[in-house]
């Protein structure tokens, strides 16, 4: 008890310093890091560079390459149907099967429908339960007269450490304006300026203001509308029906999938001319023990099943740790505090009340700086043993006028006020949270993977964002590539017959496991994180 008391006093003391020094920090412009300084900072402190967290993938298309141990285990895992006997005669037939009902999946479904092909969507939870619904900050589109797709491209390339697939990236930024128009057409309500023009805000790592958003509910708005549109098109959606394995013709073409009905644990075999995988990210793997901002179903299910069926991955070793995840209260740990709050003036300060980084550096740099402060003893420790630095939000109102926080960030305000924290009065504690899978399944501009007939869209794919995604580029990605994958998969379906359904790829994978001496340590995909208390 005494310890806890002492701890609280220390936090209060530090918080008072933050409040006292606020005015003196207010107008100071913190310099941006030089490329060299940034390189140094990131290499020293970013979790992506922590060697002991990585291991070699011993089998499959990316054999010999590295990724984090959690993902190695997933890829080398045992199929959950290995010991089941499942009928491979199709219970359902459809032109295009879409797996995953988030933003990318919903967009793809609409695009398939528009192309006139038949479509079935299967998703793990309910339609729309996803990472998409949580996006707060916004979506990047180069619209303003002082901006251009080239500028957007260069910013993204710099953010991605120059390792982005340039063709994918060019298509992403060039399609931005037209998909923004499409979103307006289906009824997405983006914020406007007083004069009625679309409002654009700056984002970290971006040289121009190009974030379209809806308050801090951008993802909710997008997902609500996409979902409404999917239902309007009467697209059939199987909820609580995750995919557990893909099917191939045994000759390198994807021909369908096996779904598991979570209500009765029965399997459903679906035969499709093409398959679009849009299963999203991996935050719930809690890589390197990090908390996460992701939804409950973000367990990277798409990776092991696509990999076993022969699809190659790219940049599978890089993840985004969002610099500002909540640290306190404990119940909010890992939850995102949107970057947009920093873009309107909130500062990061250490336990001494001092700033230590320009808040608008790219995410990997800001996250590294926060980790550095904490490792070097300038962080604040909570009673539950978490560390963090202060995000000084009251500054936002000081800089932009009272009420700005509540008006522009109603979601953030509501979340904190549930725990009796007033973000317009008090700074909050933050630490990097596992946020986004930078890499994923390798695709071409049509969204097709290296496994023919398997298209991938959204966070499950890799290449577009290089080693670090720029804020706001993922929402753009899911719409642009959701549409492209939908179109290309429909076209291919129109030229294709139904083909054989086999699990031969799985048998081959098992053989490879054996000959490489790989003993699977887990069953994958895992579908849900295991949080249940076993006592």
């Amino acid at each position, binding site marked *: 008890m005494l310890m806890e008391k002492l701890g609280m006093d220390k936090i209060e003391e530090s918080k008072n310093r933050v409040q006292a020094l606020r005015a003196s920090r207010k107008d100071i412009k913190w310099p941006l890091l030089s490329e060299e300084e940034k390189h140094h900072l990131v290499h020293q402190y970013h979790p992506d560079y922590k060697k002991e967290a990585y291991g070699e993938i011993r089998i499959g298309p990316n054999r010999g390459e590295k990724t984090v141990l959690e993902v190695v285990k997933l890829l080398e895992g045992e199929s959950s149907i290995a010991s089941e006997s499942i009928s491979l005669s199709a219970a359902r037939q459809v032109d295009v099967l879409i797996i995953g009902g988030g933003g990318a999946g919903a967009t793809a479904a609409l695009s398939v429908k528009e192309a006139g092909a038949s479509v079935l969507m299967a998703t793990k939870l309910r339609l729309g339960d996803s990472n998409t619904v949580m996006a707060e900050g916004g979506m990047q589109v180069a619209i303003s007269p002082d901006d251009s797709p080239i500028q957007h491209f260069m910013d993204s390339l710099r953010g991605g450490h120059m390792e982005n697939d340039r063709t994918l990236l060019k298509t992403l930024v*060039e399609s931005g304006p037209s998909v923004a128009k499409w979103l307006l057409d289906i009824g997405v309500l983006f914020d406007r300026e007083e004069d009625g023009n679309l409002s654009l805000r700056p984002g970290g790592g971006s040289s121009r203001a190009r974030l379209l958003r809806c308050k801090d509910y951008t993802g909710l708005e997008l997902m609500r509308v996409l979902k409404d549109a999917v239902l309007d098109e009467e697209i059939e959606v199987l909820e609580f029906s995750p995919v557990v394995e893909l099917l191939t013709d045994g000759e390198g073409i994807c021909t369908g999938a096996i779904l598991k009905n979570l209500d009765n644990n029965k399997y459903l075999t679906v035969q499709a001319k093409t398959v679009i995988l849009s299963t999203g990210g991996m935050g719930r793997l809690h890589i390197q023990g990090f908390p996460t901002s992701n939804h409950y179903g973000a367990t990277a299910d798409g990776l092991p099943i696509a990999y076993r069926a022969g699809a190659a991955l790219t940049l599978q070793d890089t993840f985004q740790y969002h610099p500002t995840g909540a640290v306190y209260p404990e119940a909010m740990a890992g939850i*995102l505090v949107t970057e947009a709050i920093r873009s309107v003036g909130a500062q990061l300060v250490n336990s001494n009340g001092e700033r230590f980084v320009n808040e608008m550096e790219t995410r990997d740099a800001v996250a590294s700086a926060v980790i550095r402060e904490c490792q070097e003893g300038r962080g604040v420790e909570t009673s539950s043993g978490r560390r963090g630095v202060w995000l000084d939000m009251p500054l936002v109102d000081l800089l932009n006028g009272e009420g700005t926080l509540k008006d522009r960030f109603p979601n953030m305000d509501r979340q904190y006020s549930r725990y009796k924290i007033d973000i317009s009065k008090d700074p909050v504690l933050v630490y990097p949270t596992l946020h986004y899978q930078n890499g994923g399944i390798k695709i071409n501009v049509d969204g097709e993977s290296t496994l023919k007939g398997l298209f991938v869209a959204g966070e499950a794919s890799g290449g577009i964002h290089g080693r670090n995604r720029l804020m706001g580029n993922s929402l753009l990605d899911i719409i642009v590539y959701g549409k492209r994958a939908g179109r290309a998969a429909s076209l291919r379906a129109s030229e294709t017959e139904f083909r054989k359904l086999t699990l031969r790829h799985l048998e081959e994978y098992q053989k490879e496991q054996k000959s490489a001496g790989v003993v699977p340590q887990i069953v994958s995909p895992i579908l849900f994180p295991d949080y249940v208390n076993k006592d």
Partner: protein
Amino acid sequence: MGKTPSPRGGMMSRSITIEFDGAPHYVPEGITVIQAMWHLGHPMIRGIGCLNGVCGACTITMRSPSQGESRTALACQTMVEDSMSFTFLPPDASKKAITPLSAEVPDEKKLLHFYPETKRCVACQACTTICPQGIDVMGGVRAAINGEISAVAERFTSCVMCGLCSMVCDARIRPHRVGILARRLSVAAHPGSTEQLYVRIDEINTGRYKEEWERVMSS
């Protein structure tokens, strides 16, 4: 009770009593209702989604000593309290009307055209009272009856589509469905403001950036 690891990492302590589905249970303090469910051995599949207060999957009705009346809340956003009781509520079962935005009906009439029962609202406030997001739902419904699309849209900005408003409405009105339709329709009420966007699309389509691209892509 000793310290137990929390699902999000970190440690938790001190045990309190909560009542779930009528039976008492002990859980550590400082966790959310969803985390308490895990603690009690329930692997959640329904009644869970974003864990972030925006998907509306985890609605509960609860009573706690700190407030007299029972109220609804989102389980992922609610911390357990000593002597609280709660029950999970069913998911949204309201049916969505098929609402093509381009239907041949004037915009201000579309809400009632697709959701005609809306005009049966008896202003009982039940929807507003139950909304876990604190939305003035009834105000939205009244505005819908008056055809004020933008006013409806504005009210439902933070709607998480949990469907509780529609569950409690005796007149079988589906306020959240009307709300989202109003939002989709209201985009068209901002015409002439996307000039920049059209200019940019045109520039891209007519090859304005072609040379720059060649330079950038080959560098």
